[in-house]
């Protein structure tokens, strides 16, 4: 074992360090620290992005070759297929979100830190949101090519649907990932819990995408409102309930 100076001999180490008195609130500083940690870990391991992107692309390819849809058929079935691919990718991505924290009981270390418990959830949700969006950015161009649909004219609207729909998947997904992390049948439990909750999100997102891809395109105002409303409800519930969800 390497030798090293004893702690008591080093007064700088023994002294209590200064804690920032003018820094951000514990919620925001904790949120950004956890988000940065998630991104750094993912950039290093690339476990989630590679797995989910390959899986989602496989789904899109398989449906494309199975149905060989015309442009008109693609406008009808394409939005549903696209959101099923997003859902599968999201489920695959969300399961390890809290499972990875169990390996060395790092979740306990996060809970011991003087940050708001919701910072843990929001930091992880933000990271999952980013990862799923990256998967979608890879997937949508492939979908456009294989399903022969044009999204150039509706790109801002589609981006908005993807943002709201993805948020609607990752907020409850991250919560259920935390809840099921300790369960024995967690691989089965997460989709079982998640799918019923996500059904309204998927219906609204599919409807919104279908409206945008229709000829002529229609603005999916009602579906977007539903998505935004669901996101706000999920986020509020997560903020207030997350602490008790983690308690033993």
């Amino acid at each position: 074992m390497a030798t090293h100076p004893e702690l008591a001999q080093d007064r700088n180490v023994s002294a209590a360090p200064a804690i920032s008195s003018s820094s951000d609130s514990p919620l925001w500083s904790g949120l950004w620290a956890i988000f940065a940690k998630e991104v750094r870990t993912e950039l290093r391991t690339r476990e989630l992005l590679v797995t989910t992107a390959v899986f989602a692309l496989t789904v899109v390819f398989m449906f494309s070759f199975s149905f060989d849809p015309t442009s008109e058929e693609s406008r009808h079935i394409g939005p549903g297929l696209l959101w099923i691919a997003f859902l599968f990718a999201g489920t695959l991505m969300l399961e390890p979100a809290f499972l990875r924290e169990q390996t060395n009981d790092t979740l306990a270390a996060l809970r011991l830190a003087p940050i708001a418990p919701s910072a843990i959830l929001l930091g992880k949700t933000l990271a999952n949101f980013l990862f799923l969006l990256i998967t979608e950015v890879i997937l949508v161009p492939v979908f456009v090519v294989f399903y022969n649909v044009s999204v150039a004219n509706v790109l801002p609207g589609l981006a908005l649907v993807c943002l709201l729909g993805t948020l609607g998947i990752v907020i409850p997904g991250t919560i259920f990932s935390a809840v099921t992390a300790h369960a024995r049948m967690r691989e089965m439990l997460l989709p079982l819990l998640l799918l019923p909750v996500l059904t309204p999100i998927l219906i609204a997102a599919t409807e919104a995408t279908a409206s945008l891809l229709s000829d002529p395109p229609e603005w999916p105002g009602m579906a977007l409102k539903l998505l935004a409303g669901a996101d706000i409800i999920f986020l509020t519930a997560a903020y207030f309930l997350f602490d008790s969800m983690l308690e033993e």
Partner: protein
Amino acid sequence: MTTQPTPAATTPATYLALSGPLRLGLGIEYRNVEKRFGPVRALRPTSLEIHPGEFVALLGPNGSGKSTLLRLTAHLARPTAGTILFRGPAGYESGLAARWRLGVVGHATMLYDDLTAEENLQLFARLYQIEGAASIISARLEAAGLAERRSDLVRTFSRGMRQRLTLARALLHGPGLLLFDEPTTGLDSAGCEWLARELGSLHDSGCTIIMSTHQGGEVTALATRTISLESGRIVRDTGSTATLASPDAGRGCAPLLPSP
């Protein structure tokens, strides 16, 4: 009905003012604290007072309630009944405020394997909003003998190195109360000797230390007070002045260190 003392508000700024240049130990009062997991009573109603600066060894076999008591103290679990109060330099503190002054070394390392040693400490420095974190992290890594491995992933570390980094993480914010849950698990004799030195230094610096173990030995012998638990209840408490130097210390347990 018992009147609860009003906790003093401890913020990052007041924490520094209260703790001063050196650590000040935190006292703890357990008032009829009980923990059940369904029908299982992990900890029976327990009242106990631990004074600032004490080094308490919790002894007992597996399942005796040691880890439960530590997790309750760390606010990782909520008591089924009773109250845990923390006493700092300015009076009673709430559990949340006490987190600024709490360091925990558990069974697991609580470190991220896919981050480097330095990145792990940087993460926790950000979570604890430590000013001048870079120099403190360097000093901690130096003290742990890991300065040359600061850029290596934790997954490449040996058990002893991980344990040293775990202690560095737990001490990063200068806690006044340290909880150790069987910290010698997996350590070789050299690692146990190193840990004993560190614990002695921390105790000398004024930290309150509570350490659970089911073994006796050099590390446990440092304790100024021992509390034995069995089936979730305290069966023996030596009080705050006794040490484990008595011949029956650790009786029935395998010695932690080999005899010379």
